[in-house]
């Protein structure tokens, strides 16, 4: 760990702190339908959209209709993405003549992008045409992010409203999110990324004649060496490098701004074309956290309790720092099993565990990115989590297991943490022996039951599918790394998909019938089985009367509240997942220290 590494972490957190209030105020205005500086341009577009799509912008919906509209939109757009992938060969913007995506993979990918997961069982540059990348995948990056944000806003309205049966209009919230919160920032951000070196073009791939022609060993389709007639390994002459490009920047920015994470390339944000410089890396990490941080201020403003918003922000920031420092420490120490290697940090090298990391980022910026992407439900990566040290790799896993409430996915992080807030005030209520209240609303049996449903469904899908996969051949045959690491690969896969994160311990081969189908189900359950109980709480809170705070009310604006909130998140996570973690990364760490290899 170096002073410079600490500085990078500090500057990043400072930037997030600075953006929270202005972005929060902006979003409050957007969702309260007040004037913003973008109105002269966007308001006419908005009106046009409503006219074309038959939306009455004055109409409000009850939570059930809101949920129903959200589901309809998700199903229709998911179906379109599936069909686009299956027919891409016949559609325009396909200079590489990419063939139809196979049905199971297309289903998995459609579920993945609709649920804001962006789990990828394919190699982007070798599978998807430019049309699919733009109008299929990047498009869903916009809409799945927008759906997440509008749901958080609906939840906040539920808390803020008194004795109302409605929580807003889904279509209006959706359009306003896309036009005001996503599109303008993506236009600017995409151009910033191009300025740093992210390509944006529609040409076919380039064929470069490389400087030094290479003789490489010939391998067959299974990766085995091919022998020549003389019995020696045959060689291939390689004098060309095919360089994949495309409309990358426009997709890259919404991938982060909407916490989606689905890379244009297989290597995601580690690829020099997706993330060419340390500055582009900072821009991308900033984009991942910005909206989620801003929403904490929006929460405070819409519920007339800015201090509550900041109390939630501080709980998130503390959990974030704990994660990033643990990860940075673990990766800086390097791999004790490697010999004859200089892993020390010095002025001329980053040192540490560099397997699966890029030199321009080194250890600090890679650790920071891995923490940010899993705190939020982004899932972009700039280094392979599978090659991290056991404890280093456990941090991203734990981050997702804590339901991605540490800033979290856009919207999803906000409604995720509000579930824990409901539990926290409930527990505080139990401790003092009176009916819990949250911002003037009584939290009753129905609300707590719905909150518990959310916290139980999540581990249930993860642990059940992990258990099945780790004892059946169709599950274990996909493992790349033997020993406890193999269990971690499977556990990570289902955790990531249930949490709609999308990052991977990517050694695991997910492109099999079992993983494509079980993964798609996990993602759909992880998304919609969270959303529906959450909207139910929102509808229930909106109907309730306002109860003025009294002496016995547990205040949700104090440091004590932040500590209680952190405790609830950590205790629920630890009770659920500690046994699985101890058989995976913790066991591997102990065995590694003892010199065991697999």
């Amino acid at each position: 760990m170096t002073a410079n590494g600490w500085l990078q972490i500090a500057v990043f957190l400072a930037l997030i702190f600075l953006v929270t209030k202005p972005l929060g105020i902006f979003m409050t205005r957007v969702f309260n339908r007040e004037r913003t500086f973008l109105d002269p341009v966007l308001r006419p577009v908005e009106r046009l959209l409503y006219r074309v799509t038959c939306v009455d912008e004055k109409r409000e919906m009850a939570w059930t209709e809101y949920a129903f509209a959200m589901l309809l939109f998700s199903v229709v757009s998911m179906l379109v993405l599936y069909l686009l992938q299956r027919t891409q060969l016949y559609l325009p913007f396909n200079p590489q003549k990419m063939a139809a995506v196979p049905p199971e993979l297309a289903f998995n990918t459609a579920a993945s992008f609709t649920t804001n997961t962006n789990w990828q069982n394919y190699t982007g540059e070798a599978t998807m045409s430019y049309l699919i990348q733009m109008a299929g995948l990047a498009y869903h990056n916009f809409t799945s992010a927008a759906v997440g944000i509008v749901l958080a806003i609906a939840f906040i309205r539920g808390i803020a409203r008194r004795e109302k049966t409605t929580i807003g209009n889904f279509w209006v919230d959706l359009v306003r999110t896309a036009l005001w919160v996503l599109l303008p920032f993506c236009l600017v951000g995409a151009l910033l990324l191009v300025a740093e070196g992210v390509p944006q073009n529609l040409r076919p791939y380039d064929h470069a004649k490389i400087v030094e022609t290479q003789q490489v060993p010939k391998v067959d389709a299974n990766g085995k060496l091919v022998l020549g007639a003389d019995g020696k390994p045959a060689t291939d002459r390689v004098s060309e490098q095919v360089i994949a490009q495309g409309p990358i920047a426009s997709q890259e920015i919404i991938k982060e701004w909407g916490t989606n994470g689905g890379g244009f390339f297989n290597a995601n944000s580690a690829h020099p074309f997706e993330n060419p410089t340390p500055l582009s890396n900072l821009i991308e990490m900033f984009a991942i956290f910005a909206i989620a941080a801003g929403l904490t201020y929006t929460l405070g403003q819409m519920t007339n309790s800015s201090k509550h918003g900041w109390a939630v922000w501080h709980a998130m920031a503390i959990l974030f720092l704990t994660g990033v420092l643990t990860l940075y420490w673990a990766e800086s120490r390097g791999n004790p099993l490697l010999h004859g290697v200089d892993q020390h940090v010095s002025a001329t090298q980053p040192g540490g565990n560099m397997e699966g990391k890029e030199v321009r980022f080194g250890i600090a910026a890679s650790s920071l990115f891995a923490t940010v992407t899993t705190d939020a439900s982004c899932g972009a990566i700039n280094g392979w989590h599978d090659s991290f040290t056991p404890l280093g790799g456990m941090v991203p896993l734990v981050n997702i297991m804590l339901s991605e409430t540490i800033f979290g996915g856009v919207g999803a992080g906000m409604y995720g943490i509000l579930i824990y807030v409901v539990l926290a005030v409930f527990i505080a209520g139990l401790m003092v022996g009176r009916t819990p209240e949250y911002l003037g609303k009584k939290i009753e049996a129905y609300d707590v039951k719905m909150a518990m449903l959310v916290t139980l469904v999540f581990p249930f899908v993860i642990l059940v599918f992990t258990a099945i996969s780790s004892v059946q051949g169709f599950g274990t045959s996909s493992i790349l790394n033997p020993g406890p690491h193999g269990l971690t690969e499977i556990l990570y896969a289902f955790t990531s998909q249930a949490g709609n994160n999308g990052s991977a311990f990517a050694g695991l081969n997910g492109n099999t019938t079992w993983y494509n189908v079980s993964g798609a189900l996990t993602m759909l359950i992880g998304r919609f089985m969270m959303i529906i109980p959450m909207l139910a709480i929102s509808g229930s809170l909106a109907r309730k009367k306002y109860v003025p705070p009294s002496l016995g009310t547990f205040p949700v604006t104090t440091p004590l509240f932040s500590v209680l909130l952190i405790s609830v998140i950590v205790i629920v996570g630890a009770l659920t997942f500690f046994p699985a973690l101890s058989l995976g990364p913790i066991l591997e760490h102990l065995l590694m220290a003892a010199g065991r290899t697999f």
Partner: protein
Amino acid sequence: MKRNLITAVLMTLVTTILLGIIYPLVVTGIAQGLFRDKANGQLITRDGQVIGSRIIAQPFTGARYFHPRPSAAGNGYDAANSGGTNLGPTNQKLIARVADDAARLAAENPNQPVPVDLLTTSASGLDPHISPAAAEFQVPRVARERQMSEEAIRQLVKKHTEGRQWGFLGEPRVNVLELNLDLDSQSSQRATASVAR
């Protein structure tokens, strides 16, 4: 119910045109106008022929060249198939590979410990950079093979070393392709394709 279904279909259609077609095409137009080189992947051409991208690693194995980090992209440095090994820290394949490469490199320059980035595959398989330590490690070999002084080579390495961005972001690094191209242009004889091991 029916009304929401109609809206869902129309909304998907209209927003796909706006966000999926118009938005990326507008970004493409502006990017091509303002940042032509960067929007097209920073390609390097020699005698009218593209020979690579400034920010994509390509293989170098000859002793006269600086070598990039090992690559797991496709069969190695495949810029249409990016990726890493994904080997875990306790995997014998990783440990054996590093031990083999470390022994080979130690024979080449016994005076210095081998910097870790020269022995580990990058995340993308296309990492265009090595650390300054990894470049320094290769200086004696390249100087010997090119019959140049180590000092002259070091000067070139220094020229192609980028510091931290804004003084604190990321890590110092050396661009291997640019360094090698500069070496070739400095050497009296043009580079001929050297025989790989």
